[in-house]
């Protein structure tokens, strides 16, 4: 077989030719490429990009109790990390207190356990919230976690208006992947929009939602599907808010986005360039945005765990470096690099430091940040950006024709697309048609495992349950009951749940108690069968 004549394609199936020339760029290309900081933002959301400020280096972390995680945060900040990103344990994400029977094994395991606002105060003990941008990976219980954070800020004497950071609060993508939903899709969207609406008037520097394609991609969809799913979800939220009477320009500039960075280097760069252009079109044409900031897409890039291998784990350092570089050349506003040991455990301190160093070396030593959007004008990259945009737009239109994201998710359509694509990928790796170094190529028989793995502290769950007991004993039960009944009332009546949840947080109500108040009104969701 002649290798040179073999047909090539990107990971999402876009054909790739041997050579690209000026013929591959459409005649209206200069207008579509534009200038950085100006619509349609192909070249980046800001004029000076990394010349002015590097991206935010945001390593996701959390485990055990609030005190345990507080120590890790202090360590990461000392190492030069520039912002925090909180990982919560599954009970917190699912609205279960640490002493709930379903929580038994999971307290503090994949993230920090937070039961009450007091835990949040301890999480940020000694870390000034007016000076730190904080990302919260939280969805179904996002309004509760936001309320706890606001209480922590109040107790530090920090005004809401000076808080900056991001609440993930994208519940629709939880039905596609990761699956930390509680309520049915429609009620979930309503709660997410309550948060966005609340923040649009009180937290001007805070991103109340991060609309995310990352998790669906990590669950197996393609790069073009990732864009389509992200914007279908974005449209579902924006339509809901606009229908409620919230003006698009009052919240759109605070929407943030989150994409994956996987192995097909140029397709990843093209994908996020296309994403900025697609959002600019949607904001302008569908919502009639008047404020330019409403059309400017800003995103967090998550490097990929799904592409990392358990075999020959040090190879993952190389994979992550390429993914981080693609995110930088795509113009990300913040980046997370995976630990090379994540096929085994949550990352060790050593592997988190190496992930951070990867970002620092690319940012400070490689020179790629000296000029804005250095790949612009590449015949191949511009042509691929056009192709990705066209394919993603086609899939987005297909989803809209199915009735939009909420309908398509409720019917299980998007979930099936993801599963089919991930199965095709697994078969391609199994039959060797997709190369995976150390797995289906250059595999060795010797067992290679990371030198040191994170060791979970099994006593953390007991300590957390004791903290919860103590917090419960210190509060005024009548005040908690009254506050909870206000949450029930707001949830049932359709008024914004945020103010009542904030009051409940102030008097010491727990995650489980507040979530239960909403469960009683909204019900719990069970997903459709996959086949």
């Amino acid at each position, binding site marked *: 077989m002649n290798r040179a004549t073999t047909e090539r394609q990107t990971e999402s199936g876009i054909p790739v030719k041997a050579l690209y020339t000026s013929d591959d760029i459409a005649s209206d290309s200069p207008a579509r490429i534009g200038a950085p900081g100006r619509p349609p933002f192909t070249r980046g959301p800001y004029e000076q990009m990394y010349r002015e400020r590097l991206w935010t280096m945001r390593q996701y972390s959390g485990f055990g109790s609030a005190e345990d995680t507080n120590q890790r945060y202090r360590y990461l900040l000392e190492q030069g990390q520039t912002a925090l990103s909180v990982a919560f344990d*599954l*009970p917190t*994400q*699912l609205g*279960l207190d640490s002493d709930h029977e*379903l*929580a*038994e*094994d*999971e307290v503090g*395991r*994949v993230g920090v356990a937070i039961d009450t606002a007091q835990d949040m105060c301890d999480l940020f003990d000694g870390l000034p919230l007016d000076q730190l941008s904080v990302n919260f990976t939280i969805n179904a219980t996002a309004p509760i976690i936001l309320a706890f954070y606001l209480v922590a800020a109040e107790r530090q004497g920090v005004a809401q208006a000076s808080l900056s950071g991001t609440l993930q609060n994208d519940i629709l993508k*939880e039905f596609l*992947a*990761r*699956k*930390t939903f509680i309520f049915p899709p429609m009620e979930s969207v309503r709660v997410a929009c309550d948060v966005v609406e609340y923040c649009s008037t009180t937290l001007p520097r805070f991103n109340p939602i991060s609309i995310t394609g990352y998790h669906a991609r*990590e*669950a*197996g969809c393609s790069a073009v599907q990732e864009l389509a799913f992200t914007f279908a979800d974005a449209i579902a939220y924006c339509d809901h808010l606009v229908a409620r009477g919230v003006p698009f320009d009052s919240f759109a500039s605070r929407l943030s986005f989150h994409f994956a960075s996987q192995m097909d280097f140029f397709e990843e760069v093209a994908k996020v360039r296309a994403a900025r252009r697609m959002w600019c079109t949607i904001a302008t044409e569908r919502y009639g945005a008047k404020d330019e900031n409403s059309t400017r897409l800003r995103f967090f890039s998550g490097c990929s765990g*799904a592409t990392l*291998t*358990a*075999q020959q784990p040090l190879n993952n350092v190389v994979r992550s470096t390429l993914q981080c570089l693609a995110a930088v050349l795509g113009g990300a506003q913040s980046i997370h690099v995976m630990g090379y040991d*994540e*096929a*085994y*455990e*949550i990352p060790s301190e050593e592997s988190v430091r190496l992930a951070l160093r990867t970002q620092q070396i690319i940012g400070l030593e490689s020179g790629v940040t000296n000029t804005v959007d250095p790949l612009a004008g590449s015949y191949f990259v511009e042509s691929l950006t056009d192709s990705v945009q066209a394919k993603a737009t086609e899939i987005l239109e297909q989803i809209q024709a199915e009735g939009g994201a909420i309908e398509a998710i409720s019917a299980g359509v998007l979930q099936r697309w*993801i*599963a089919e694509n*991930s*199965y095709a990928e*697994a*078969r391609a*790796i*199994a039959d060797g048609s997709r190369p995976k170094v150390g*797995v289906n190529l250059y595999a060795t028989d010797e*067992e290679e*495992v990371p030198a040191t*793995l994170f060791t*979970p502290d099994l006593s953390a769950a007991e300590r957390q349950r004791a903290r919860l007991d103590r917090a419960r004993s210190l509060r005024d039960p009548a005040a908690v009951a009254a506050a909870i009944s206000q949450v029930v009332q707001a949830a049932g009546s359709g008024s914004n749940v945020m103010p009542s949840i904030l009051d409940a947080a102030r008097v010491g109500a727990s995650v489980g108690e507040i979530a239960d108040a909403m469960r009683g009104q909204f019900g719990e969701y*069970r*997903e459709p*069968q*996959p*086949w």
Partner: protein
Amino acid sequence: MPAASSARKPRILLAKPGLDGHDRGVKVVGMALRDAGMEVIYLGLRQSASSIVSAAQQEDVDLIGLSVLSGVHLAITARLIAERDQLGLQSVPVIVGGTIPADDAQELLRLGAAAVFPVGFDLAAMVDAVRELALGAREAANA
């Protein structure tokens, strides 16, 4: 091989115990087992040990497959095997897949798991192993 064991397809029960929602792996496994001619019942997310073993009994399955990526595989598997044994289903093998460090894989086998498939397992080898375990379990149950 007695006729009874080849009369029906191997019946496999897959479930995600605990709170973890990462279901990419379990779905790939389910699709691969179906393509290999097995009958696959997927119970879905957030299953307790007792709901899984009672489904195994009701559905008369030949093998139970658990998928756990949140690190709580040891506690959950131990509990599930104890409940399985209480129901008298010792002949139904339990296999575990997910984010499982090598030492824990050994510990799972010691707890009574029939096989462990950590991240990075070979898909074809997994399918063969499951078929063999399921048919072996059927024969043992019919013996």
